[in-house]
């Protein structure tokens, strides 16, 4: 099937949305401005996209600014959340228990019907995070049917990132700003429109159905240059893609105390992290007494109850919780999933109320050659 890049004029974006709907994905979700941030919500047409919006992000800071003279709709870096809540729901029922009059219990699967949905404007970092979460939730011998059902309902339209935030460091983790895989369609935004390529057969089918002209080499070069500039412009980085041994050698480093004194243990970082997967399970009985729903809900290793053991907490102190999070994300993740658990999206930096910066904390931990001093 035709795989070369096509050009989608800005005036034809709604035709692309129609073609995606025609492919069976009747519901479209895309970036919109809500409560002062770019978030993903249901959209009807290209008019709903955040035209002229730019973001300004720094440790503990996220602000949107409107640029009236810009026609672009993707000139921003990720807001607090994108794909994760669509595949790993913040709260969902796993099963239901029904109790009959004689006390007998019947266990029923929770419904798993999800409307086929196309997500417009997925970023490279979130596609990398999606692959990590798929590895976690779908690994044998217990692949999770709830995650699988949500994942298989999605059609993903990536937009290569041309405007990273100051908090972004996906170039150093190798996860962006260009979306390399995991999408159905990928687009680069230019002033006059989009350069579009297909990533899957169904994506290429959508593209072919539109009868678009090939993108010119000038358009493709311009698109590529913007993504290259987005990589070069990133000021933050991690010193290595594999910090396992370096962090394991620094489990008693005094910097854990230092960061532990600043950290509020609020769990914002884990809520916005696109790879964090911890969740609590709990029952919610109906008032009638006849049924009880068994739910899972996002949890955080920064809460006290996360390590609750009946008679003690494994991680009473905040410094131990921060160390658990960071060493899991950047060290033990390699042993569990063959790569780091950080995709460089920078959300944990921007959404930390006290501006704790994972790249700065790692740098401080690495600064001392002697792990114990």
């Amino acid at each position: 099937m035709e795989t070369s890049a096509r050009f989608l004029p800005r005036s034809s974006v709604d035709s692309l949305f129609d073609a995606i709907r025609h492919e069976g994905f009747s519901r479209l979700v895309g970036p919109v401005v809500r409560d002062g941030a770019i978030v993903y919500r249901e959209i009807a047409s290209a008019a709903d996209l955040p035209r002229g919006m730019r973001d300004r992000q720094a440790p503990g800071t996220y602000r949107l600014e409107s640029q009236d003279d810009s026609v672009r709709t993707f000139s921003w870096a990720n807001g607090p959340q994108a794909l994760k809540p669509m595949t790993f729901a913040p709260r969902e029922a796993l099963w239901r228990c029904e109790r009959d009059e004689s006390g007998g219990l019947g266990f029923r699967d929770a419904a798993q019907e999800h409307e086929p949905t196309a997500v417009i404007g997925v970023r490279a970092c979130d596609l990398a995070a999606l692959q990590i979460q798929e590895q976690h939730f779908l690994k044998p011998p217990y692949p999770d049917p709830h995650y699988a059902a949500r994942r298989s309902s999605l059609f993903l339209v990536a937009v290569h990132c041309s405007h990273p935030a100051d908090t972004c460091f996906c170039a150093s983790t190798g996860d962006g700003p260009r979306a390399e895989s995991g999408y159905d369609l990928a687009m680069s935004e230019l002033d006059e429109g989009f350069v579009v390529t297909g990533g899957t057969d169904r994506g290429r089918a959508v593209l072919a159905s539109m009868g678009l002209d090939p993108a010119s080499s000038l358009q493709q070069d311009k698109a590529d240059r913007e993504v290259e500039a987005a990589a070069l412009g990133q000021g933050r980085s991690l010193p290595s893609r594999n910090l396992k041994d370096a962090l394991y050698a620094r489990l008693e480093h005094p910097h854990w105390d230092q960061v532990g004194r600043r950290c509020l243990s609020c769990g914002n970082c884990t809520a916005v992290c696109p790879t964090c997967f911890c969740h609590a399970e709990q029952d919610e009985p109906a008032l009638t007494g006849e049924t009880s729903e068994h739910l899972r809900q996002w949890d955080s290793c920064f809460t006290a109850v996360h390590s609750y053991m009946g008679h003690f907490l494994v991680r009473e102190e905040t410094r131990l919780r921060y160390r658990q999070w960071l060493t899991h994300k950047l060290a033990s993740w390699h042993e569990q999933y063959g790569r780091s658990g950080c995709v460089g999206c920078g959300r944990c930096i921007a959404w930390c109320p006290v501006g704790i910066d994972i790249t700065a904390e790692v740098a401080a931990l690495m600064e001392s050659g002697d792990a114990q001093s």
Partner: protein
Amino acid sequence: MHNPDRPVEVEVVERVAETPSIYTLHLRFTDPEVASAYRLLPGQYNMLYLYGVGEVPISIVSDPDHEGPLEHTIRSVGRVTEGMERLQVGDRMGLRGPYGRGWPLEEAEGRDVVIVTGGLGCAPVVSMIRYVLSRRERFGRLVILQGVKHTDDLIWRRQYERWQALPNTQVLLAADVGGPNWPFSVGKVTVLFNQANIDRDRSIVMLCGPEVMMKASIDRLLALNVPPESMWLSIERNMQCGIGHCGHCQVGPYFVCQDGPVFHYPALRPWLGVTGF
């Protein structure tokens, strides 16, 4: 796709009060097909569900070949276990499992089996002790070292006395605080190592109990030149899913619910006793 997280119904067929806060539930699957397909290994656990309240991971005390109800010994420590304490014979609950890695049965064949436990009876090793005793010819000596805080804490005292009388079996008990009817040692479980005749080349050691106790015991065993490769231990963490998804039970690179609860000591050594993991 099968929902790996959904329990099946079981019925309480017997309920034994072991101490004021410890009880044993004997559970029977109400679906005979589920019962006949169920297989377990000593050291594994089930997730038990109390209607409307929630689930807890509980070790299985039964022998894998025992046909009949599954035994679970439970201590009342929280919302779910306190609620389960009120269940009566005939009541229904949920069960899913078994989960995790059990004791190393193949490695133990032909060797002396040394069991070191502390705390309240330590259910995870009871299934192993029963396993050895009902296949006695396949193992060497059985040495059981059990430490408790208080003499009243020793559940299954008769069972220990019965084991003590068996040939080729050594049972040594110690309580931190002795008492008038306590004929055994006084002190930590580590005081028993001098009395135990542990053949360092023939023995496989299985430990279960508080981590400080296991660490102190391992140090004593290493001093006796028992190789680290001969030691296995069962540890405990917060477990909510049992299938490696929820993240609570992580210790370093491991999810205790799936990679454990029984670990080979060399694999767990870097993490054992490190506060916060």
